[in-house]
């Protein structure tokens, strides 16, 4: 499947969503948080897309511009990668889970919750993954501070 066909497919799913103009090696698709679950399900289930693998899921903290959630999908059948980007506000970072679509998402979402504090709706087991259970705050946020940290000398 070449990229043009893939893009045409994706435009059909939801004309509202825009193909991101971002310059990345992968085709990047920017969608809204509300349509995330719907789009993801289609990506996985529709036979001519069949993105059956969630390679990675992570987040970027853009401070006043909110969190950017990134999902990298791969189709083992068509050997095609796709990047899905969702922007959510920083104050109330809630997003539906995709762990019922790809099981691999469960641990990856837990990691993002652990370090960024993104709340995943309907996640089966949203607990700390790497940090201690009683840790306060989310250390990968850019404004994170605690008493233990040393500021660099300069």
């Amino acid at each position, binding site marked *: 499947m070449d990229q043009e066909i893939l893009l045409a497919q994706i435009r059909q799913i939801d004309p509202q969503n825009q193909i991101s103009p971002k310059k990345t090696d992968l085709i990047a698709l920017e969608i809204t948080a509300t349509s995330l679950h719907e789009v993801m399900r289609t990506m996985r289930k529709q036979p001519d897309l069949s993105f059956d693998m969630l390679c990675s899921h992570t987040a970027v903290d853009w401070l006043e511009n909110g969190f950017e959630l990134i999902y990298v999908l791969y189709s083992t059948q068509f050997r095609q990668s796709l990047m899905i980007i969702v922007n959510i506000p920083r104050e109330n970072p809630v997003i539906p889970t995709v762990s019922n679509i790809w099981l691999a998402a469960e641990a990856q979402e837990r990691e993002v919750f652990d370090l960024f504090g993104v709340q995943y709706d309907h996640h089966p087991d949203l607990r700390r993954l*790497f*940090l*201690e259970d009683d840790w306060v705050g989310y*250390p990968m946020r850019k404004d994170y501070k605690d008493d*233990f940290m*040393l*500021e*660099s*000398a300069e």
Partner: protein
Amino acid sequence: MGLVAQMDQISGGSFILTRMDEVINWARANSLWPLVFGTSCCAIEMMMATGAARHDLARFGAEVVRPSPRQADLLILAGTIVKRMAPRLRTLYEQMAEPRYVIATGACTISGGPFVYNSYTTIRGADQIIPVDIYVPGCPPRPESLLYGILALQKMIKSGESLREPGIRKKPVVSELPPGVKLEDITLELRQILGDEGITNIPEEIARREWSTGL
């Protein structure tokens, strides 16, 4: 000092007169069984480079790497220690039998290294958790450095602890190259220590093995 050397000094070599301390320290220093606590890049350097055939830790009697703290008497710390690991490290140290020695290799275990600033979880130095005998600087240290560290520890053991005062050691020791000492000097010293098993002049031997910085 070699036990053989002590025997040879007595004519006929049929019996030994020495302090128990010397015999025990000699035995301890030459059969260090390390427990490896490897958490990151330093561990790779230690396992792949220092432990492998080219540098051959076995020459110094420290090649029997144990996975269990109960069987080990030297804890080699190699790699970054984080907050979550700290209690486990403490437990490992406490499970080792006395006498136990600790070598900290690499900037991370000495001070937190490259992660000392703006890190929410890196422990700034292993000596905040457990006592450390030898510090081997580097990021990661070269195999020669670690070998030099082990030799430094052997010197410390041989010259140090006594049965009357167990646990009293001369420490800490920095195995960093003192000013003026070059890598060739170390190689030479290694070769001499390896070669000289049959030395008869004990006082001279003791004098020769003194630290150039003064232990």
